């Protein structure tokens, strides 16, 4: 098919031809075309199907408000559903397919819905499909769900990259039509930092689609001149292909820049789109206006368009949307379309003008006081039926009809802070209301100034006002001459004649009848209307249909439009790709990795790593020949208990706490006492929240009179630090305490087991005998001359130390420890073995430190000192947290050593019915203890302290296991703690 509807003129580059396909059919277009303009040039009107009735549809607009011409753009993993053909820039090789039609766009089996439309009224589904109850999920809903949706995703990973950015300006100008250009020019010349953003690839706004003159030149040329001047100003940033999608608090705007969407694939390394967060001191909305249709019977056929769009296709793209066109209007702007098309040599069949009086258009059949009452044509418009002023009807053959019901200012972004638009009677439209974003003003058509002169004048005026408020001096320049036609509109919302359907929201198939039904059923509030009929909830968010819908409701209720009210627009202005919002944070880059100092060494050993928060920790280190993880973990545990094991514990939080009040400060933040701790010693500390629940635990060492090193759990390192700063700044602001995190500054390894001291003494320059470095000792040391720290603390229950060096030497230290440990058959163990040993020892960790447990629950109730004020002390004494029958930490093992138990199982008394009343608590964590040769677990058991020695059941419904267990002390291993003091 040739470009049969291509006419002269337009801003396309005819020297170059782009080949593209739609539903496999090949076509040609030119640079500067959109997919819609190119298809129309090729005589293609049918581009989609509607959501509910599967009615054939073509574009009604030439912009981002398009509800009908949605296609799947590109193919494979790059397939983009619901893409508006009216804003998709043509590129060579573009592929598009139709959507929501089967087997083909021209013959769509689901169009049966259209035949059944009398049943499928608004909200019909609320009234049926209720019986039998099970049929909803099994029968009705699957059918509905299969039919749901418009376009399809391929389920393949999006191969493109996305980027984010932050931009700053004095003045953000949204929209580069006459008002926006004038505002940017005024501010730019005054030296202000300006960002001018426009969703179109070509700046100029409506000027590109009109034949107006500004000054003595074509509007489009004037715009190009201004753009060139702005581009030369270093303080002005021009962002075309950039949509401002949302107005957020305090001058922050979200913007989507379509960096590569006009290319077949993005250039290497370049993102497809960039999400900008724009920080603006002032902003001007110059986003123009959107034309609205007039509803009449069968007004949804391909070929029925907005009059301004018909004009835009002719003027900007050199396309006549039909070989014979008509115009239906209630205002003067519609007449412009007829004049422009006539001037371009297009056959204008008639202008149907609902108004009476006024001048008749020369050379055109101008029918005043007439209305279009119906249309005809299969898969596209063939004719319209017109009720003439004299009462007779006439059928006028035409393949395109331009409809103009007036223009709605694009107030959308001014509503993003939930400000309601206000009705302005003179232009019969809503304009921005009070209470919008504080730094935002509207100019031009967006503010209700619908003429070109009005746009230029208000653009300049709003820029001057913004500059003045910023203290930037600027002066008004003479405005160029431009059209200043008054708005001659006589509102007509829908044609009352006819029993058929007249569309308001074409994508969602909401018709005048649906609004009438909503009214009849008392869904008269605009919000109820929207929700009941789905008006304005399609992909265009009601840009064309919303005002029309509520005008119909206003007429039905007999209220004025402002009294009927309006819904408000919410972000985003136009839909935004999820990939753009996520930016670079996806896949492995979703969250940054944190690597431990031994990571390189462990990788060389083939260690298995596990995610712990953002850290990657060694989970276990398999040896050659080991086939299951249990083999490795058992070996690590047994070797540690038998001789010595090494574990990277760098991830535990470390906080350096100094100052003359450091000891007193720790007394306040820990429930036990620290001010009495001797220099060179450490102590286990329990930290409560103010509500008395356990917050965190760890050991804290006193390195000097005014110097402590606190450790926290890996999970809480950040929140504990934040909490300490809160205590220091907000609660006790005069305490002499200074805090700094040193978590990453030191590589720290646990060395545990009977031979731990022997191993370490080979490396440590000082005497670390029990006498010289007793249990819970802490101090600065040197290791083969290297500065380090040593803490004699144990999580495993063994004789154990934690040894630390500056992180850069962490790799060297693990290698030295392993080397020195060879004679002891030392192992390096991971988090699994660590977990086994801590449970064998009965230390609480993640499963028990769940934020829902008290010190008493953990068997640590005596640690809460009442002799001093500390966070959580008072509220931990509430009655509900001190019940004798409350949960207590216990140890659990299966009666039959071969029996298997699982964490998350619940305790039941033997013989008790399996029901809620028998629920005794749950197993918090479970491991296999190679030392004991059976599964062991910790658990919270009601009155557990009184049940030691008792037999119970551990029931897990999910794995269908029910195991007899013995309740034991949580200290499975060396309960007297002789080994760690050895």
């Amino acid at each position, binding site marked *: 098919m040739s470009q049969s509807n291509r006419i002269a003129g337009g801003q396309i580059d005819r020297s170059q031809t782009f080949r593209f396909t739609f539903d496999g059919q090949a076509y040609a277009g030119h640079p500067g075309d959109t997919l819609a303009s190119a298809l129309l040039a090729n005589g293609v009107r049918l581009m989609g199907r509607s959501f509910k009735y599967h009615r054939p549809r073509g574009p009604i607009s030439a912009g981002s408000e398009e509800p009908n011409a949605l296609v799947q753009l590109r193919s494979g993993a790059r397939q983009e559903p619901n893409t508006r053909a009216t804003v998709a820039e043509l590129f060579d090789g573009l592929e598009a397919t139709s959507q929501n039609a089967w087997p083909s766009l021209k013959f769509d089996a689901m169009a049966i819905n259209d035949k059944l439309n009398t049943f499928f009224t608004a909200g019909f589904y609320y009234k049926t499909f209720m019986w039998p109850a099970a049929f909803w999920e099994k029968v009705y809903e699957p059918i509905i769900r299969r039919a749901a949706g418009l376009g399809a995703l391929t389920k393949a990973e999006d191969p493109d990259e996305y980027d984010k950015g932050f931009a700053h300006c004095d003045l953000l100008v949204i929209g580069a039509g006459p008002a926006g250009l004038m505002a940017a020019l005024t501010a730019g010349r005054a030296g202000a930092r300006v960002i001018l953003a426009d969703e179109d690839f070509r700046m100029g706004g409506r000027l590109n689609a009109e034949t107006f003159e500004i000054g003595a030149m074509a509007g489009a040329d004037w715009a190009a001149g201004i753009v060139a001047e702005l581009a030369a100003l270093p303080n002005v940033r021009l962002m075309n292909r950039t949509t401002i999608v949302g107005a957020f608090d305090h001058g922050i705007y979200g913007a989507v820049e379509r960096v590569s969407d006009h290319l077949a694939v993005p250039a290497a390394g370049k993102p497809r789109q960039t999400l900008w967060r724009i920080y603006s001191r002032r902003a001007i909305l110059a986003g123009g206006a959107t034309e609205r249709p007039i509803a009449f019977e069968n007004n949804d056929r391909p070929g029925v368009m907005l009059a301004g769009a018909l004009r835009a296709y002719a003027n900007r793209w050199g396309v006549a949307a039909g070989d014979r066109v008509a115009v239906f209007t209630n205002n003067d702007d519609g007449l412009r379309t007829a004049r422009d098309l006539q001037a371009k040599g297009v056959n204008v069949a008639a202008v149907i003008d609902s108004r009476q009086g006024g001048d008749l258009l020369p050379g055109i059949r101008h029918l005043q006081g007439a209305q279009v009452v119906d249309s005809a044509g299969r898969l596209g418009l063939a004719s319209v039926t017109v009720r003439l002023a004299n009462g007779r009807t006439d059928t006028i053959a035409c393949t395109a009809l331009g409809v103009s019901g007036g223009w709605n200012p694009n107030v959308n972004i001014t509503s993003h802070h939930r400000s309601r638009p206000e009705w302005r009677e003179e232009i019969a439209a809503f304009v921005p209301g009070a209470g919008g974003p504080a730094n935002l003003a509207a100019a031009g058509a967006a503010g209700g100034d619908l003429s070109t002169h009005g746009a230029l004048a208000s653009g300049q005026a709003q820029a001057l006002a913004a500059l003045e408020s910023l203290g930037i001096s600027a002066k008004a320049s003479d405005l160029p001459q431009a059209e200043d036609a008054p708005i001659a509109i006589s509102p007509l919302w829908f044609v009352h004649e006819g029993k058929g359907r007249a569309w308001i929201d074409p994508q969602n198939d909401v018709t005048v009848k649906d609004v009438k039904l909503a009214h009849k059923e008392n869904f008269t509030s605009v919000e109820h209307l929207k929700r009941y009929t789905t008006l304005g909830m399609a992909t265009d968010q009601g840009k064309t249909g919303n005002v029309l819908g509520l005008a119909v409701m206003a007429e039905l209720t007999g209220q004025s439009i402002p009294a009927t009210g309006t819904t408000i627009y919410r972000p985003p202005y136009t839909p935004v790709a999820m990939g753009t919002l996520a930016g670079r944070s996806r896949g492995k880059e979703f969250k940054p990795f944190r690597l431990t100092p031994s990571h390189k060494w462990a990788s060389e050993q083939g260690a298995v790593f596990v995610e712990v928060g*953002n850290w990657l920790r060694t989970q276990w280190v398999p040896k050659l020949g080991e086939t299951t993880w249990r083999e490795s973990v058992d070996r690590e545990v047994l070797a540690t208990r038998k001789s010595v094991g090494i574990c990277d514990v760098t991830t535990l939080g470390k906080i350096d706490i100094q100052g003359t009040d450091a000891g007193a400060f720790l007394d306040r933040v820990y429930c036990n006492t620290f001010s009495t701790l001797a220099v060179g010693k450490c102590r286990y500390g329990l930290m409560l929240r103010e509500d008395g629940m356990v917050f965190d635990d760890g050991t804290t060492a006193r390195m000097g009179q005014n110097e402590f090193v606190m450790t926290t759990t890996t999970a809480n390192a950040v929140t504990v630090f934040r909490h300490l700063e809160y205590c220091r700044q907000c609660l006790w602001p005069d305490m002499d305490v200074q805090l700094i995190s040193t978590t990453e500054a030191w590589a720290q390894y646990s060395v545990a087991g009977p031979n731990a001291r022997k191993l370490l003494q080979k490396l440590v320059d000082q005497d670390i005998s029990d006498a010289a470095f007793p249990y819970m000792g802490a101090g600065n040391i040197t290791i083969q001359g290297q500065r380090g720290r040593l803490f004699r603390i144990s999580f495993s229950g063994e004789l154990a130390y934690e040894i630390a060096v500056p992180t850069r030497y962490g790799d*060297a230290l693990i290698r030295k420890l392993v080397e020195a440990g060879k004679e002891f058959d030392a192992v390096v163990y991971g988090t699994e073995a660590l977990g086994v040993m801590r449970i064998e020892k009965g230390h609480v960790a993640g499963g028990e430190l769940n934020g829902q447990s008290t010190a008493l629950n953990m068997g640590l109730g005596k640690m809460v000192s009442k002799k001093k004020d500390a966070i959580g002390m008072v509220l931990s004494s509430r009655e509900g947290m001190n019940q004798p029958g409350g949960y207590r930490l216990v140890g659990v093992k299966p009666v039959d050593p071969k029996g298997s138990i699982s964490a998350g199982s619940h305790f039941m008394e033997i013989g008790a019915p399996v029901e809620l009343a028998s629920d005794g608590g749950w197993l918090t964590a479970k491991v296999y203890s190679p030392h004991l040769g059976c599964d062991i677990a910790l658990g919270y058991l009601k009155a557990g302290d009184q049940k030691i020695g008792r037999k119970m059941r551990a029931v897990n419904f999910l794995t269908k296991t029910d195991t007899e267990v013995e309740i034991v002390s949580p200290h499975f291993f060396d309960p007297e703690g002789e080994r760690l003091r050895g």
Partner: protein
Amino acid sequence: MANQWNALTALGHDTAEVVEIGPYRIAERSDVALASLALRRGQDKDFAAAAKTAGVPLPAASTHAGGQVFSAFWTTPEMWFVEADFATHEDIVAALKPAFGETASITEQTDAWVRFDVSGAGLVALFERLSNLDLATLPDGYASRTVIEHLGVYLIRHSAASVTLYGPRSSAQGLLHALEVTAKSVI
């Protein structure tokens, strides 16, 4: 066993890495020692005097100041990070402590951070994709914490063509990756 202590850089190599992408040069630095220096309560006068004697600048908020031996930037009220040459000040706390005594709390920070010096023309275009700081209008010597790719990073603007970053050492590779990807996307 040799008493050798082989140091790894934050990126996990024996020597600091340098990456060049278009006009940008991203250089890891492992030759700078770093310590936090915090004023103890009520010691303002003696602290200031000690700093002067020791030659430690105490720049105002959001500022970095160079010095003969020690440079410093402000991090938080009454706290600075002090920089010195690693070769001569590896134990930077020991170097500062005698001067400040009990007037300050001093903590080693050297290996808590990875330092990247990023230089070249067009740094604004690079950093506006990474950080919300308005690098174009910030004065030379500006220093502030900011967020880059979910990471808390100190950014110091030395000049329009030279910026220093201190990011969390454990995420050094992730931070470099972000810098590289972004540099490739803006050139």
